[in-house]
């Protein structure tokens, strides 16, 4: 009977059953790096970023401008979608979508943690 060393750190007397199980389960072993489906959990962030893109230009209204853009405003959107450029008589403002995403993500981390049974604290209970 093995003393358990082989099971612990592959030292000591070999346990054939451990080897057999490891080799049989190799077919089930998670391989490679499968990325998490970012679209599923980033979708709400992208929506929030879109809201920000609308809110940021309107924010200028608080500083004397009108909320409705002047008729000679020209707005262009680059094909790569990386930035929205707003040209107006007051100057040109560029809003970085990636930056907006990060800022929204930053706000998300400030939300209170979920209930204790769902999200753990730093301390791990031992089995």
């Amino acid at each position, binding site marked *: 009977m093995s003393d358990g060393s082989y*099971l*612990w750190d592959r030292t000591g007397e070999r346990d054939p059953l451990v080897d057999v199980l490891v080799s049989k389960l190799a*077919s*089930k072993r*998670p391989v490679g790096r499968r*990325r*998490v489906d970012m679209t599923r959990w980033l979708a709400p962030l992208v929506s929030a970023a879109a809201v920000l893109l609308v809110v940021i230009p309107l924010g200028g209204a608080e500083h004397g401008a009108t909320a409705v853009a002047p008729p000679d405003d020209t707005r262009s959107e680059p094909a790569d979608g990386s930035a929205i450029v707003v040209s107006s008589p007051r100057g040109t403002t560029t809003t970085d979508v990636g930056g907006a995403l990060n800022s929204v993500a930053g706000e998300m981390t400030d939300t209170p943690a979920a209930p204790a049974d769902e999200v753990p604290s*730093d301390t791990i209970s031992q*089995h």
Partner: protein
Amino acid sequence: MASRRQRRRTRALVRRARRGNASAFATLWDDHSSTLRGILMSMVHGQEAEDLMQDVALRAWKAIGALEDADRFSPWLCTIARNVGRNALAAKRRAAETIAISVDEAAEMAATGSTPNGPEGADEIMNCIRELPEAYREPLTLRLLLDLTGPEIAERTGLTPGSVRVNLCRGMKLLRGQLEGEGVMP
């Protein structure tokens, strides 16, 4: 075992992820996903484990700002995976109380072999592991499925080396008896 350099790298990535950097989080996720998948597979079947991985990622991303000690990132993530797995099992139990498969249906499934089966009894082995007490399931899955050593399991899960060692030995003893009883192993 993780080197000091790896630990430093993880700490830096955690700090960036806490500030809302999604790509830092994705890198951390890549580094830890096989362990998390192993933990979930100790509770549920492969495809379901894959689905639950998404929940783990979402919860971790939402809560990483509350993680104070970057050195505890790996055990913290493992605990989220455990909680997600437990919640899924509890939901399944609740569903089983309301939806009962008829005896005939179950017999038919068994006769036609519609239960998915991997090569050379891998699924039967995983099923036997999932029937073990919870304390033994996880270390044994990480040892046998991911081929991690005990010290590696302790480091990744945050469990003490002593408890991993004991649970591996006791779990293996139970599994041995179960595999012989089920006739899975010769």
